[in-house]
């Protein structure tokens, strides 16, 4: 599709220079660097902006909780960004509020200050806009859900040590890893408790990032809505940076789509309310348990299924012979070993089941919700119309909503407005969503539409770290296979660096091979590499057929 659009606009000198020395020359395309620090996103884009200048965009700066040498690595990345950019990041983009996308602003705060790294402007999704009514409503509900989850975590911790509960706890920890260390949820929850902790959470990191663009010389923050077409604030308007269009695809301005998390799961009913995920009576019970207000236990009576007259407190029941014999202890047959009998009896009890199942659903809901409010950007190169697609961690609802958008900024020359299908067909660089998990890359209305011959995928996943956090299929094997098929094996993973000059996949003449590099001044484990790949703004004439 992009083939015949190789327009004759003035791309002048840049195109010629690159033909002879593709690696050295940075003048005719966008250089994308993916830092290989661990499970987390950190991308630096550099675009020619006039003769001696580059326009630098940083998309996310984070690493998953509990990664080895996390603080040192993030500091190293900040130092490298300082070297690569010369001290100023022209544009910072934060896709969404998860620790593995923003942790660096907290962890490497010192390094940012020490190096005096400047950030000029910040792009955030409209959902972060405090003056947007819909965003406020969503955030309010999200806040309630977070509070309920934090209480559920507390309640789970209170409720014994059975193997079933251990599995739930490990799962919740895995999801909570997206919210950083400490009290799991940053200020929202901590304000209630004692603010004694020294580790910062996700919300702290977000605030620190926002503060960076409030300084003198910075130009603040813009909130982007789907359907908008943005320009970079480049110094030279007719440079590549000045000509690039950034099309905003998500998050959708539709509360329903945001809540559509997964095309298959059955646990998310069609009601928009949080209570459709977990009933309010569940939330109240959790609240009661977590805050452990014994005096209040039987006051809020509507959540209770029966009148007080019918209720016998659990503690009291443990003394009654009926519940002792049939529930708590059982009656051990003489011949049976006590440990074996004890295991059999406790397996049949249901103490934490109600809590575990609700907490799981709530945690999944919150997690997917945050992923779905990811800012999705398509960077369009002016001559070749190639697209660089950065999806954050967008899930199904977000992906589907792109297809409702129509971009008619080109309607003059092109009668039909652009659709998501067009944009996907022109995509030559795809940042794989959510570290390659299954519902963050749509198949039919996503990957299968990425038909460009030069498609390259960049996947920020660290399999070992994902395993340490006990994430099941991250990345999903069948997705890796599908991407490999679509992109002629040009899948660049940050956890599988290659030797020498042979990156994975077929790199035909005309495409510039990616390379591994580093500007680190450190030694040992904390020194982070990056994978550098350059997208040129002209059609290379490759035919895969």
């Amino acid at each position, binding site marked *: 599709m992009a083939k015949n659009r190789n327009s004759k606009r003035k791309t002048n000198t840049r195109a010629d220079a690159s033909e002879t020395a593709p690696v050295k020359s940075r003048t005719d395309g966008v250089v994308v660097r993916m830092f290989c620090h661990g499970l987390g996103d950190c991308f630096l884009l550099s675009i020619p902006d006039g003769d001696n200048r580059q326009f630098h965009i940083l998309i996310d700066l984070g690493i998953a909780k509990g990664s080895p040498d996390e603080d040192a690595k993030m500091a190293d990345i900040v130092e490298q960004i300082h070297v690569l950019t010369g001290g100023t990041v022209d544009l910072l983009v934060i896709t969404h509020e998860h620790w593995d996308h923003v942790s660096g602003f907290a962890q490497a705060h010192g390094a940012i200050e020490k190096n005096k790294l400047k950030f000029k402007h910040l792009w955030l999704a409209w959902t972060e806009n405090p003056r947007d009514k819909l965003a406020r409503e969503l955030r309010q509900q999200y806040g309630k859900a977070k509070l309920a989850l934090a209480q559920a975590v507390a309640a789970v911790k209170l409720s014994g040590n059975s193997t079933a509960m251990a599995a739930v706890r490990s799962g919740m920890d895995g999801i909570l890893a997206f919210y950083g260390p400490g009290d799991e949820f940053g200020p929202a929850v901590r304000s209630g408790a004692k603010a004694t902790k020294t580790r910062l959470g996700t919300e702290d990191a977000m605030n620190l990032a926002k503060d960076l663009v409030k300084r003198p010389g910075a130009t603040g923050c813009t909130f982007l809505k789907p359907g908008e077409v943005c320009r970079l604030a480049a110094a030279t308007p007719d440079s590549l940076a000045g000509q690039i269009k950034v099309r905003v695809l998500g998050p959708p301005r539709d509360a329903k789509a945001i809540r559509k*998390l997964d095309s298959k799961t059955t646990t998310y009913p069609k009601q928009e309310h949080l209570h*459709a995920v977990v009933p309010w009576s569940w939330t109240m019970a959790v609240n009661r348990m977590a805050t452990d207000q014994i005096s209040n236990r039987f006051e809020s009576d509507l959540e209770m299924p029966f009148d007080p007259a019918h209720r016998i407190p659990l503690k009291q029941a443990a003394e009654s012979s009926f519940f002792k014999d049939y529930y708590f202890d059982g009656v051990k047959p003489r011949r049976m070993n006590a440990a074996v009998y004890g*295991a059999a009896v406790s*397996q049949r009890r249901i103490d934490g089941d109600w809590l575990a199942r609700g907490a799981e659903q709530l945690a999944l809901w919150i997690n997917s919700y945050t992923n779905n409010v990811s800012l999705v950007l398509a960077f369009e190169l002016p001559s070749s119309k190639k697209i660089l697609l950065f999806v954050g961690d967008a899930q199904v609802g977000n992906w589907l909503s792109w297809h409702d958008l129509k971009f008619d900024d080109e309607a003059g020359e092109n009668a039909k407005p652009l659709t998501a299908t067009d944009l996907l067909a022109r995509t030559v660089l795809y940042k794989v969503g959510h570290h390659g998990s299954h519902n963050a890359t749509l198949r039919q209305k996503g990957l299968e539409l990425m038909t460009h011959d030069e498609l390259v995928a960049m996947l920020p996943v660290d399999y070992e770290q994902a395993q340490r956090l006990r994430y*099941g299929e991250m990345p999903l094997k069948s997705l890796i296979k599908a991407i490999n098929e679509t992109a002629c094996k040009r899948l660049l993973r940050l956890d599988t660096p290659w030797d020498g000059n042979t990156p994975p996949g077929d790199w035909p003449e005309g495409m510039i091979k990616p390379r591994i590099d580093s500007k680190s001044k450190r030694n040992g484990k904390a020194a982070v590499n990056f994978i550098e790949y350059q997208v040129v703004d002209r059609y290379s004439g490759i035919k895969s057929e």
Partner: protein
Amino acid sequence: MVIKPQPDVDVTTTAPTEMPTKRRLRVFAFDPSLSTELENYDVSEVTVGVRWETDLKPGPVGEYLEVIDVDPASDCVYAPIDLNNPALLAKDGHVPSEGNPHFHQQMVYAVAMSTIQHFERSLGRKVMWSDQRFTVTENKKQSEKWAPTERLRIYPHALRENNAYYDSEKKALLFGYFPAQPAEVDLAMPGGLVFTCLSHDIIAHETTHAILDGIQPHFLEPSNRDVLAFHEAFSDLVALFQHFTYPEVLSRQIARARGNLSTETLLGQLAMQFGKASGERCALRDAIGEVDEATNAWRRRKPDPAAFQKASEPHDRGALFVAAVFDAYLAIYRHRTRDLFRIATGGTGVLPDGDLHPDLVRRLANEAAKVAEHLLTMSIRAVDYCPPVDITFGDYLRALITADFDVMPEDERNYRVAIVEAFRSWGIYPEDVRTLSIESLRWNSPDDATQNDQLKPFLSGIYGVLNDHDARWGGGQAWEELRSGVDTTGKAGFEPRRKLTRMELNRRTDAISARLHEVIREMANRSSGNGRTISKTIFGLNVASGHEADTNFRVANLCPIRRPHPDGGVKEDLLLQIVQRRPGYFDQEMQKTEDKRFNSVDASAPELRSCDFKFRGGTTFIIDLETYQLRYAIQKSIFSQHRMNRQREYLMALIGLDERELYFGKTPDSMRLAHLHGRKAIHE
């Protein structure tokens, strides 16, 4: 005159009293929602007669069930009901009420017990629960243990969510309660509490899951896309057909539908209140029709032969299967009542306007109940005729036809034709038959001529075990006791005999199974010429070929089954299942290496490594106990490459699709299975 005090004579205890056979208990016929509808108010509750359990304790805790009302979310328990309380005995238990936890306990007990009774009546034997498997940590070592499950546990208020399920690890039914969230306020009171343990359909459905798990424990292992769907569909069927066992409800619905059951009635719907309170406009499931999204009007669902091939989600496939069986039911009902309509209308068969004559209604209800009972019995009996592993709907259709044939060799009422026709119109076919005729659908008996040298030693081995008088393991006595259900220990001459309890029967089954296992092993390992020998790979099983670890097998589900003899009386067959497994790998190369090893006869093969999935094979044997002829051997071969590939493909396509799995690990089978949810996603 002076009245002298007479010495008191105690006259109250002299007359012998016979214990009642039934305990009458009041329950909601469907769920509490009908009790606030004027039209249905008088059929909103029914009184069911459940078997009189002499030793019923508070709970209720009986021979089969224990209702334990713990509600951890509310940090409390509810006192157990004593159904032997005279006040309750005199008035058929508590009055149906949502606000009384004792009624909740009474209702789950009553409905679960009636479901159990349907199974016992159809199968002619006691319902047993599957063994409890658990892990014990002793001295930091973990070991797998199992123990027989005496009673199924019921927790009426276990969860605060709109769900209920059978948990196969806990051997328990967990019911939830939740505030209603209707799509429209006139469907249910928003925020009003809905109890899943007060829904007749949900209780029957979940109890059926537990009973089916007791009969066929491997049907909870999703080895192909039909296995879990079958569990769901079967449970739905039992719950649906149970509606037809309440005469008052049935007559009322038939009168309302003017005899035409293919219209919208309560009979074909499942869990109405639950559906409406969870944001649907209709019942959770409907076997006959559906509600049009646009017009909100009910319409009869039309068979779509292509739908079954396309549907991959378990609930979808299950719903199509239920619809097919129900279509068969309706066809038989129409067929059987045509004469009644003709008689009532002077031969025209065209009903005049207005209500039906009450006599006609009663006769129609009678027919409807009879057909339902027959189909319910057949559906349940067919479970015995299923292969022990890797069930498909096609297999079940063949089992259904075979079970029906065994009871009624002459298909006088054309039941089998109606069933095959319905399955065909819904596009549900077995994969391994040449034609869709009744003869080819019926499981075939093994050909004596070709397998004679195989069969004879195998059958005589079984005969030997059942008629053995070796006292070390109980011998033939255990088998006699299992067959008759009474204790014969130490009874030389005539003495009154005690009935064996379910746990005692269980121990006898275990003893015979163990002995049979030993004998089959011996026969297979014996070199020819030294007595009875059988093939090392008999009936698609590996009993002696290759490495010792590969030949492990389990004798499961051994019991006598009875069927009416065509010449009157009852004939007895032996049902015997043998199951085994071998490692499966997602990686084709690893699988090839493993297959090569498995198929080699060389005994010094390497040890098994940990595998990606368990591949199971197994055979159901049905043997005539009079003549010791093998009537059916229903096989799922352990050597089948086709099934192995199918299972691998199925499992690989599922990997990573569940977001829950990404963070919380593998979902236990039971949980995923019994979710009442699921339909909802499909409606979306």
